[in-house]
């Protein structure tokens, strides 16, 4: 069964997203809403990672070399932020890309959970999927707000 590979992917992608939210938040702390919202959103991903742990233990987490197809899907997180208004926009966009990877991963996992009639996993996948939507919605909202000023007038 290949589900374990996707569980590993979910695990790593959520962890990467959580870490990246924190990096972007701290890096753009002069925008207080970015700082505090990124912290809150990182907390959501942390929570998903925590709740995934017992399920992963049940299925075993395969993150090994022979699973190299999904391995390629692992996206690198953000280690540092860019500066200035356009930098903020780009960083939010990167977070959005990471979030999309997380979301599609949960969609795939939810399908498998249905096939397996694994209620715990299905519930987690649906819950996490919903919260990832909230993360993505905020990123969208904040990018829309920042874009005109960053792209048209900022130096």
């Amino acid at each position: 069964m290949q589900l374990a590979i996707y569980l590993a992917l979910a695990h790593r992608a959520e962890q990467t997203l959580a870490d990246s939210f924190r990096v972007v938040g701290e890096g753009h702390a002069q925008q207080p809403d970015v700082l505090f919202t990124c912290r809150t959103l990182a907390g959501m991903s942390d929570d998903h990672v925590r709740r995934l742990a017992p399920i992963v233990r049940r299925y075993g987490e395969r993150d090994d070399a022979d699973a190299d197809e999904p391995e390629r899907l692992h996206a690198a997180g953000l280690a540092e932020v860019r500066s200035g208004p356009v930098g903020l926009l780009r960083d939010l966009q990167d977070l959005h890309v990471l979030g999309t990877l997380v979301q599609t991963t949960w969609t795939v996992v939810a399908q498998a959970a249905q096939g397996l009639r694994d209620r715990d996993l299905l519930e987690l996948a649906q819950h996490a999927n919903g919260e990832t939507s909230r993360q993505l919605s905020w990123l969208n909202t904040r990018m829309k707000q920042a874009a005109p000023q960053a792209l048209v007038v900022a130096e």
Partner: protein
Amino acid sequence: MDRIADIWGPRTPHPRGTVWPARVDQYLADGITESDVDRWVLSACLLCSNGCGCDIAVKDGRMVGVRGRATDVVNHGRLGPKGLYGSTAWAHSPDRLTRPLVRENGELVETDWDTAMARVTEVSRRLLDEKGPLSHGFYTSGQLFLEEYYTLAVIGKAGIGTPHMDGNTRLCTATAAASFKESFGADGQPGSYTDIEHCDAIFLYGHNMAETQTVLWSRILDRTRAADPPVIVCVDPRRTPVAAEAERTGGVHLAPRVGTNLALMNGLTRELFANGWVDEEWVARHTLGVDDLRAVVEPYTPDEVARICGVDADDLRRAARIFGTSGAVLSTVLQGFYQSHQATASAVAVHNLHLLRGLIGRPGSGILQMNGQPTAQNNRETGADGDLPGFRNWDNETHIRELAGLWNVDPLTIPHWAPPTHAMQIMSYAEEGSIGFLWISATNPAVSMPESARIRRILSGDRCFVVVQDLFLTETARLADVVLPAAGWGEKTGTFTNVNRTVHLSEQAVEPPGEARSDLDIFLAYARAMDFRDAAGEPLIRWRTAEEAFEAWREASRGRPVDYTGLSYAKLRGPTGIPWPVNEDAPEGTDRLYTDAVFPTATDYCETYGHDLLTGASVTEQEHRALRPDGRAFLKGAAWTPPHEETSDEYPLLYTTGRTVYQFHTRTKTSRSRSLNDAAPESWVELSPADAAGLGIAEGDLVRVESPRGSIEVKARVGQVMPGAVFAPFHYGSAGDDPPGQANELTMTVWDPVSKQPYFKTAACRVTKLRDGDGPAPAPTTAGSAPADAGVPPTEGGAATTSRSVPTPAYPNDPGVS
């Protein structure tokens, strides 16, 4: 009668369901008697959001006093200390601005209007050419008239096309508007003051009404002191007069730790579910989201709430029982919620309680999300706060086309491609240099915005050209590049709308001093000089007088929830102010909204598609449409999260700012009244007796209060705050080199994710004693800042006023027993 000592005046108790008796309060300046008065001019008080109807006394071309209008539905003739003593004294103050000022070689120097306006338009034009509309920002007030806001909104949205326009209402009332939009689909006060006469219980959430709206509190006292009083429940970390009244009426005073309001609200909501106090049938028919809400509040058991908030679990249960079992409940909400952590979610939770019981739109069952400032409501209505005029939805193309048609401009001019920029973000853009032109009207952000040092730096820097128009050379005006002298209340004509939607006309009583001009005339002069045109090449703004501006606004309001089409200046000259909507269906106005339980949530009609209360993320049109709200109200909940700054060993106390009864806003007007100023002349800070003892501080000692952002040095009042908290009044600015006493030196730059209202009540601080005092703190003894030590002499000494009973007239929209 000394209304400094006797804030609420004599009582006129009356039974439930009967009309509040009329009483006329009057103040005339020293030496003036009624027979000296040349004329009385129609107006309404502009010193808080209550909007008490009044007449201005004029003698020899000067405003010399005020008297309440017995026929006005809002105040039935009463006025409070601020209205009585503070309305007119400022007007002939010798330090009024009478000529425009421009900065020359670093100094502000007097000049004429042509020079000043040329300087403004030259920078404005150059930036529009070089950088476009996003280089312009406007920061306005909660104290102008409707006509002025609407004119400014049209200039900003259709002339320039910038989304960077906001009011200082962002600091005081944004959460009221945001919470209405989230729950009911559009702004609009559901309740009415007449609910006071019909209710069985009144809940005041973070609302020290006894000090912020004294006349409204008199109205409540006249019920609580009657034989069949309603029960009061008070949510406030200080033991205010409201808290005392709660105890007196057998209600509850809940004093949650600063930053935990939402946990408390979730606890109250959970009790309604747990005890079966939910009107399931009404909820099913008229609301959306009950299952999600039930799940969100489930963890907030009374014991859990007690742990988070530091309140007694049984007190919480008692408060919930009062809400759950009273026939009719009125709720009021103010800064204790709006300026605190998770503001919008907490204010929305008040709506949830009412919706769960179906207690809305019926006599006695109302919600009053209050405003701080007198004309904040108009700022929201006309779109000078960044919203679109008429509660239109910036995300709805049809609404944009309506406005484009009304103004005859290209829809793309109207900045709707991004959310309107809120005040704090405008300051950020000015700080970054991408806003190079900032026009500030009738407000004093150098005192009222959080983290004052940062705001002063932004305004005084040379990256941004700052225009300030005001009555006085305020702390903010001193930093400007151009200062324009404005006419104030009584020196110009216009309308404004109070907290419960009542529109008043305020007529010009006297000429403004020197060359001062009305804010309307200043905006019109700018529009003329900039030559803003519509698509047909005609002048964009075709009105020249306040009345014409009102008529233009009336058209903009047509068909929207905030419908003014049935109003005119002539109608407003009648005996009383009139609550909107006023139209063919409601020619005499509307006392209470949502009597049919149909809310403005339909996707094509609503003002917003809503937000995630935790993050502020926007709901999209498709998501909204899929829910098919169609007139049903939203029940929305959010989990409590810890505040952004918590206490530590270094900063062990919670810092919160607030108001005092004798001052208004940054004291531009109230400090110029001797009676008011003497009652609360300087800043102070309040500590609980326990904390004061631990720190070796006694009443009147000079202390330093520090947060990670700044410090103030003020005298200590050992008073009524809860242990662990420190309270400072926000009104006071820094005069010259004196030790700073300005409360906002300490506050954080952080805001609510939905309403974008800054959190003035979330900061940690430490307090140290500097030296012994030489007398009590300059804090009033009469209300929330009452001293623990009974030996402090009482606050008194206001000038004489009169108060006389008159026959109670018949008020439209105030039927009494039904």
